[in-house]
């Protein structure tokens, strides 16, 4: 078991390195995306970076190429792929589509999800960051705030007024200054502290509330499954 976790961690570390070199590739040479960018919007509109690319593309799509002007901050926007917060790996699935990201979340230490590595997908709308992305776990995970089909339901993924669960008023909502990093950190704390008052999975909320031992058993099974054992 420990071996497997180590192996999985190593694999995810490999993944991270692959991501890093991928990102460095992006800075080092012209990618398909960049070529397309240059073709569409002219030289000098540097398209490096990841999230920033996304912001630029989405904006530029809306602007009909009226001159993207946010090229200097691209480096900063790579931060998430290069130096993600501990326990999180995230980046675009491939270099041609910056609207689909994959993210791996490690189960927070000291919780029943500890040791697990849970894959998920983030889908960005064309007007990101004005509207939030959607997030969906692509593995089985039994949790009060995750729908049975994997969709994550937390307040930061919703603008105020758009709250299927009627979140408490103090819950943090999406606004254009939020970021992917902030979302993923919220997801980590959601794993650590389920909110059974606004449940997306009623069954999971009930189990969490009434039979914590069973909930933990299911979580342990999920962890093992996520590690492929």
């Amino acid at each position, binding site marked *: 078991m420990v071996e497997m976790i180590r192996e999985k961690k190593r694999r995810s570390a490999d993944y991270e390195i692959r991501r890093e070199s991928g990102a460095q590739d992006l800075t080092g040479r012209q990618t398909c995306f960049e070529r397309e960018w240059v073709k569409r919007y002219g030289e000098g509109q540097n398209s490096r970076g990841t999230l*920033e690319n996304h912001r630029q593309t989405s904006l530029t799509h*809306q602007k009909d190429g009226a001159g993207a002007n*946010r090229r200097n901050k691209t480096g900063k926007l790579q931060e998430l792929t290069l130096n993600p917060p501990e326990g999180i790996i995230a980046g675009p699935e491939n270099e041609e589509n910056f609207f689909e990201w994959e993210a791996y979340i490690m189960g927070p230490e000291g919780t029943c999800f500890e040791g697990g590595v849970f894959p998920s997908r983030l889908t960005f709308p064309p007007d990101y960051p*004005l509207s939030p992305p959607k997030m969906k776990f692509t593995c089985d995970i039994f949790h009060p705030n995750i729908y049975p089909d994997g969709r994550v339901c937390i307040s930061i993924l919703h603008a105020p007024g758009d709250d299927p669960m009627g979140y408490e008023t103090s819950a943090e909502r*999406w*606004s254009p*200054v939020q*970021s992917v990093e902030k979302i993923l950190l919220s997801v980590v704390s959601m794993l650590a502290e389920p909110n059974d008052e606004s449940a997306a999975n009623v069954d999971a909320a009930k189990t969490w509330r009434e039979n914590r031992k069973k909930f933990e058993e299911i979580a342990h099974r999920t962890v093992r499954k996520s590690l492929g054992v």
Partner: protein
Amino acid sequence: MPKDVDSDILCFLRKSENGLLEIGYTVRKVASSQPLVSEKISFEVFGSEYSDEDLIYIHKLEDLKKRYTCVRRTRGDGNCFYRAFGFSYFERLLQDKKELQRFTDVAKSTRDDLIKLGFPEFTIDDFHENFMEVVGKLESEFTLTELTDTFNDQGLSDYLIVYLRLIVSGFLQKEAEFYTNFIEGDRSIKEFCNQEVEPMGKESDHIHIIALTNALGVPVRVEYMDRGEGDQCNHHDFPDGSKPGVILLYRPGHYDILYT
């Protein structure tokens, strides 16, 4: 038999699906048929949406006509206060270079204020730089047509709105001690800003107007055209006793721009 029923249901579903698509399409069409910021329009055109029997509004329109020449409409998308304020003020800055110089300095300093409050640099810079770029163009590059085009370009225009919202949020948080008294419920200023100020489409109340006018030092007059008694529109200047250069028309739930 069941097969027929199935095909009936399928047919019905297909129809309703088309219906829904159509509704969605109509909603989008209505939204996009109304410009984010319109050309100047006369009170005759502006008033044509009111019935002749709607005396309260007819009288109030007559009253407005005495004091103002025309109106510019903004799209009713929850951002209309910011869009109307931004456009009207920038339009004035095209003429007033001294005020532009003052405003440029103020606008520049808002970035550091926001960073100090703990907003993440990379998300702030994105909006700040877009904002400053447009402000920079007011100096010499921009014609009125280009300004109108910029405000009607959804991407650029919304980025300007986001930054105006951030200025309001930053100001309220900086002056939290005072403004916390005006927040309903037991929300903190930070929560209020996260939920009622920063997200796009959240409508503005007095507190937003007061914050924006104070943060930028730009006084605003609002003419209120509602169903209240009287033949005249009441107005209020933010702050009290100021000489506003930006004049907005408020009808319940919506702001447009007025011209003298």
